[in-house]
Each structure stands twice: as structure tokens, then as C-alpha cells.
């Protein structure tokens, strides 16, 4: 089963993403911060990461650089409330991005496309 890692400091977002993505047939693991994120990725070997940009303890774009340096081809989709993140060139290391919404159809479509690309 394809495993997806959701990193977000908001519990209700982790729960929403988990339930909806499980319904799509994915195995979902979650993390509430960037603490120990690389170790988690190393241990769980996810096929794709959905990464929140603004977390209280970590900047998602800095985490993205760390992920990209260690896992060159691991697809990362940025999840954000605003598209102002594009001002920071670090966002260019992401495969894709979605604006947070309770309708997850866009996220699901981006996940599907990026998993296809990663094959």
C-alpha cells in the first residue's frame, strides 16, 4: 500500500487528511512538527510527503530543503493557507503545492499526479 506522510501542527488538519486519504486507499502516517522528521522518513519510507509551511515550531520551507538534500526524488507537496510562500525561493524545491481547504479534491489529484511522476 502506498504510504503518505502528513506533517502539520494542527490536529484537525492531520485528522481530516488522514481520514480522507485513507478512504482513497493510502496508508497515512502523521507528524505534528518537523522534530525528528528525517529519521521518521528514513524509518517509514513514505512514497510522498504533504508538508505544512507555517508550523509553530518549524518553518516548512527549511524542512523541505533538508528533505530534498537527503531524499532527492521524494515527492513533497506543500500545504498552505496562503500562496505568499512563493516569495521564498526555497519553495521551488517542492514538487507541488495546494492551498488548504476542506475540499480535498485538489490535494488528492496532486497526490495522484505526483505519485505517477515519481514512478
Amino acid at each position, binding site marked *: 500500500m502506498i504510504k503518505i506522510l502528513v506533517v502539520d501542527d494542527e490536529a484537525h488538519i492531520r485528522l481530516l487528511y488522514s481520514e480522507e486519504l485513507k478512504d482513497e486507499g493510502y496508508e497515512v502516517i502523521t507528524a505534528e512538527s518537523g522534530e525528528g522528521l528525517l529519521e521518521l522518513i528514513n524509518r517509514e519510507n513514505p512514497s510522498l510527503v504533504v508538508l505544512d509551511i507555517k508550523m509553530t515550531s518549524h518553518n516548512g520551507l527549511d524542512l523541505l530543503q533538508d528533505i530534498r*538534500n537527503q531524499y*532527492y526524488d521524494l515527492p513533497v507537496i506543500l500545504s498552505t493557507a496562503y500562496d505568499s510562500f*512563493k516569495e*521564498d525561493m526555497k519553495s521551488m524545491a517542492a514538487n507541488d503545492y495546494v492551498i488548504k481547504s476542506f475540499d480535498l479534491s485538489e490535494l488528492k489529484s496532486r497526490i495522484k499526479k505526483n505519485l505517477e*511522476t515519481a514512478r
Partner: protein
Amino acid sequence: MHTERHQREVGFFFSLFCGIILEIMTDGAIETNPDKIEQADVVLGLPTWRAEINLPWVLRQCAQGLGQYFPFHKAVIINADSSGQAEAGRVFFETGSLNAGKIHLALNPASNGKGRNTLSILQKALRLGAKAVAILEPDAAAVKPVWVNNLLSPVLQGYDMVTPLYFNNKYDTPLTSLLVYPLLRCTWGRRVRQPLGEERAFSRHFMQILVQEYNDFLSPQILEDNMDIWSTMVALSHGLKLCQAYLAEPKPHYCLPGRTSEQFKQVGKMLFQTLNSDSSWVNIRWSKPTAFYGLELRGSEPPYNSFFDREEIIQNFDRCRRTSRQIVSSLPEIRDLMAASDCHLPVKIDHSLWARLILESFCLYQKQPEMLSQILDALLPLFWARVLSFIEETEKMNSRQVEDFFETQCRIFEQNKEVFLNQPGRSNPAV
């Protein structure tokens, strides 16, 4: 015969100047190696082919960068010069560089390009056992010591090639932004934003591949002026690990229509021929990012104004259109595509039409490879029409918003590649 004598004269000057015996290398370059350097960890290469006035400045920045960021690595700076002037070597050796040894390679001044110079640097670096080589534009006034770090460090961390990411203004490098970047991204599936930039770095593994493929390349003359884009394409076709290094200072590339027209044809030729020689990109779907290095140095807006002479571009468009009218009429694919889009010249060329024009032109080249020059001549006025459309659409945007414009363009290229490859009756374009 004449050039051999000329090389000997230049070599004789160096031997007098340096008080050493010169070595003539197997590739014909005359090597001056006063410190008899036989080994290096890292190499900085400066390919020169004319009297680069900023060479002493660039050399000092390189030496400072090596001392500051790589104090425990054995570093060598290699200048491969094809100017045929003894002055270049004299300036190179006279400029102080405390932190690195120096080797000068004098090449036969046979052409204006720098491909051979870069190749000679890579060959010498391989013989020295170097793990990483960075090539720097020897006339770049903007070069800073941090460039040395940002180019070499990713290679020492395991990347095979580092391409530059300049702090560009929105109207810099339209050829890169409107043609090379979207076409390479939609074919090879990697997002390399500045595939044409001269500053770049190579791993030992990639140097070996480049030296081999350079010798095998069918039209070595093309490589003289296009070594940078060609090396990017080789890295992409081999699926090597790429990193884009942010070079923290602006490097203005003003759009000069006459020069850009010439570059368009040269680069177009390189792109089409190289894409045609390896069909494996056909199976790649969508694109993926690369890694980045040094982005923490990023500012918000490039600190200089863009320069775009709209009138000159319009004149250039008209000139190109006049000269290629007959060619367009003889290329029904391009003519029909324009007609199907209900457009008349001068035309507004949006993302979708531009993507189709480029992909259709490539397909046409597939069917009639002998027509490559004519196809590119026909495309040239359309390129200028695209530039004008781009300027009009992005006039009030900041650089970040213009990057979104390019992102949308790239996604449409990627979508069109899918459509293009799946058209009924369309033969596989790269087979």
C-alpha cells in the same frame, strides 16, 4: 602550420616569463605549470578566449573564496585561454592568488567559442584527480567569493552537477525563460531554471561522462558556443543528481535583440539536435524539482531596473518576419498552426500557442532534419512576437509574479507534450 607557430611563440613567451619548461598536452594545449602541480581536490576553471578585462578581479574573488570556504582542500585555478595572446597568460600569473596553485592552458585560437576551453579544463582536472570543478565566467564583474562555495559545496556533498540560479530581473534572459527552460522541463522532466548559465560545477563522475560524450558528439563546432546548455542536457539525459546554486549577486543579462536572435538559432539547433539523439525523454511524465543550495541569501527584488527596448524588439520582429515569410509559407505545419489559432502577424502568442509552435516545430524537424535552419528562421519572428506578448502581459508584475507566469507556461508545455505525443497518427517524435 601558422597556428602551430603561433602557439610556440606564445609558449616561448611563457617559458621566458615563468622560467620553466612547457608541456604540450595530448589535446594540443600548451600547459604552463610553474609549481609542477600534480594533484588537486578542487579546481576552479576560467575559460577565456579574448582579453577579459575582469580576469584579475575574478581571479582574486576565486582565490578569496577558496581560502575562506575550502582552506583544507588542495585547490588549483586553471585558465584555459584561446585568445592567442600572451597577455592573457601574463595577467593570469601576475595576479596574486595565495590560496590556490595555478595552471595555464594555451589553446589554438581556432574559434570564438569556449567549449574547447572548458573541455581542456575538465580533462586537466581529471588528470589532477579533482573531486569537483567549478567553471566561472572570467568576465563576470558580479562574482563573489561565496559563488565558489555555492558551486563547489553541493558537488562535494554528492551532487553531480550544479547549475546557477541568478538573482535576475523579470526581463533578463527571455531566451532561457521562454524557450530553453520550458522545453527542457517538459522533455527531461527536471526543473532547471537557468540551464544556460555559464557558472556551473561538475563531479568527477560527470566530468568523465562529459569528456567522453564531447568526443562522440557529431557536431563539435556546435559545442563551442553551447557547452553550458549541452552539459545540462547530458546531465538530464543521464538522470544525474542536480543542484541549483543561488549566486547571491545580480548578473544583468540585458536583452539585446541582435545577439538574442543569433543565440536563438544556435541554442535552438543544439536543443533540437540533442533531443533528437536520445528518445528516452518521451516516456517521462510531468516534472520534478531539483535540490537547491544557498537560498538563504535571497533578497526580495533584483536591485536594478530591467532594460527592454520595445521599439527595437518590434523592429527586430519585423525584420525577422520579412526574411522568413517565404520559409513560413513553405512550412505548412507552422502556417496551419497559426491559421488554426485565428492569428495574424504581428500576433499575440499565449502560453498554449507558444508551446504548440515549439513542439510542432520539433516534430517538423523530426520529419525533415535537413530543414533545421529554415525551421528556426521561421520560428524566430514568432519568438519575438512571444517576447512582445510576454512584456505586455507582465508589465505591471513584480519578479515573483513573473515567475508564476513562467510556471504556468511550463505546466502548459508539460500538458501539451502529453497531447502532442498522444495525437492520433502522430509518430513518436523522438524515434
